[in-house]
């Protein structure tokens, strides 16, 4: 307040806005520049060649479908957990939140190694049902591990925003807890759940570290990009990378649009 420039006529200095805008632009530029760079430096021919490349195609479909499997499986198991966390107060609840966030902070190659102890050849699961190393389900497991926190946290936020007494009113009107969950809680938290699913799917698609440890083959697109970069250099890697980037951005845009429109309808 002692600075005369800061409070002239009680208004905040126009500087603040200017500085904030500048700093914000730097961050945005930092996000946009590399993405724009990779798009602009690839010619249309290169991209269409890559899109026609069999290896690229199969890697893209593997990546998308494995991430989708992971998302669906974790939606079925994670949504009830998110609901419990939003509704019940119990001992160890905050510890549970911390555990759910663990995959975000664990280095992803470490996560891959850790997963080997559960689904690898020598693990209990592996010796009973067969190892998931080098399989599509194995890739899905690796993707699920690193991306499920996004889904659970988003769904938890969604459920927490649903007023409890809407559920209570439904109960007194004759709805069982299960019916109440599916007809009141889920529809009202739907937008957050859907956002969480999109985030989880997107995060799964982009995973490299954990996936590459569980399965180098069959090859996901991030693994393919990595391999081509190592073996053939930048130009080869770039066109495959751009194909996945374009697909991801398109899907992401469509789903966000759908989620937004749904919420406006409500």
């Amino acid at each position: 307040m002692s600075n005369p420039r800061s409070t002239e006529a009680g208004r905040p200095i126009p500087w603040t806005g200017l500085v904030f805008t500048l700093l914000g632009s730097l961050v945005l530029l930092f996000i946009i520049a590399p993405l724009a760079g990779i798009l602009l430096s690839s010619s249309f021919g290169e991209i269409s060649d890559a899109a026609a490349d069999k290896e690229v195609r199969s890697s893209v479909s593997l990546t998308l479908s494995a991430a989708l499997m992971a998302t669906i499986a974790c939606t079925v198991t994670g949504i009830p957990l998110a609901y419990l966390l939003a509704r019940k107060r119990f001992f160890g609840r905050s510890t549970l939140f911390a555990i759910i966030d663990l995959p975000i902070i664990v280095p992803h190659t470490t996560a891959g190694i850790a997963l080997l102890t559960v689904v690898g050849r020598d693990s209990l699961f592996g010796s009973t049902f067969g190892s998931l190393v080098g399989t599509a389900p194995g890739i899905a497991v690796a993707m699920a591990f690193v991306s499920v926190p996004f889904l659970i946290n988003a769904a938890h936020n969604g459920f927490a925003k649903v007023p409890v007494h809407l559920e209570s009113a439904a109960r007194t009107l004759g709805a069982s807890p299960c019916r109440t969950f599916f007809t009141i809680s889920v529809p009202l938290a739907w937008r957050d759940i859907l956002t969480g699913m999109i985030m989880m799917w997107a995060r799964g698609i982009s995973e490299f570290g954990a996936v590459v440890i569980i399965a180098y083959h069959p090859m996901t697109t991030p693994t393919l990009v990595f391999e081509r970069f190592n073996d053939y250099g930048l130009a080869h890697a770039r066109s495959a990378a751009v194909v996945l980037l374009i697909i991801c951005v398109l899907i992401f845009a469509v789903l966000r649009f759908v989620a937004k429109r749904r919420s406006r309808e409500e």
Partner: protein
Amino acid sequence: MLELHSINRKLGDFTLADLTMSVAKGEYFVILGPSGVGKTVFLEVVAGLIRPDSGRITWNGADVTFVPPERRGFALVYQDYALFPHLNVAGNIAYGLRARGFDKKIVKKRVQSTAELLGIRDLLHRKPQTLSGGEQQRTALARAMITEPNVLLLDEPLAAVDPREAERLRRVLRDIHQRGDTIFLHVTHNVDEALYLGDKIGVMLDGTLRLVSTPEEIFRSPTDREVADFLGLRNVIHVDEITKGGCRAAGVEISISITDDSMAHVWIRPEDILLSEKPFESSARNQFRCKVIGWESSGRLLEVKISVGDLALSALITRSSFDDLKIESGAVLYCTFKSSAIYCF
């Protein structure tokens, strides 16, 4: 018949303490208590949403204390109506029947007739967020009534609507209550609402039921000073000494026709106190010289505060008598009230 037997429940700062009451079939029971926490908890306990720490709830003699809310048939209407924002009015009203697996055609027909009953037939396609407070309340009532509940639990149903709509809704509540055998258990802080709607009124203070009475009797029989204050009774006077034929309070001898040996307070209705410029012959046994201290508007009447020695009283008079008496601060008047107009407790 709905019966609560010694219900106890502690929830944060609020305690329901040893609550025992019974409501007969078809009765409109109003729980009157100050605003704030507690009354909603009470309704949620009755609805089965909150388990009591101890005590039992019975419906027609059968213990329902541990019956889950969806199987009790006690519909709860929250103060903010708790309409489902993702369903339109028709969907909200139909909710309870759909949960019970009714046939689609029957649901549609009953939604129509229930909406008609509550005067919201034109709103069936609207989303709750677009409705006025009164319309939302009618929707919430329709949604509860369509399930033909044994007990309808109402949480301050008129508190959030404007006064004219509240008046209309009061009539709606009375009408729908008279149509069936459903028990209405209605909590409110509004004394007028309780008097208008209740067959019985229970006064709840600090989580205990202090008094259960009828609208006709409730003002005659306050059980203690707190109840009297809550009911807004003016002229509740602490008795210093019980005398033959009356009492002494703040140095004034008051004559009472029916006394009670254990009385601690007496109460004179402010509308029973007559003010006059001069003393007059009257069968009324209490006539005192008094001084005007002040006055304030009380609806259509004026409340004049007077003092008889150290005893402060309020009298309700019309505006025209106010002008006739040429009332001003410090004016000396006479106040008169019958010994039979005094209640003891």
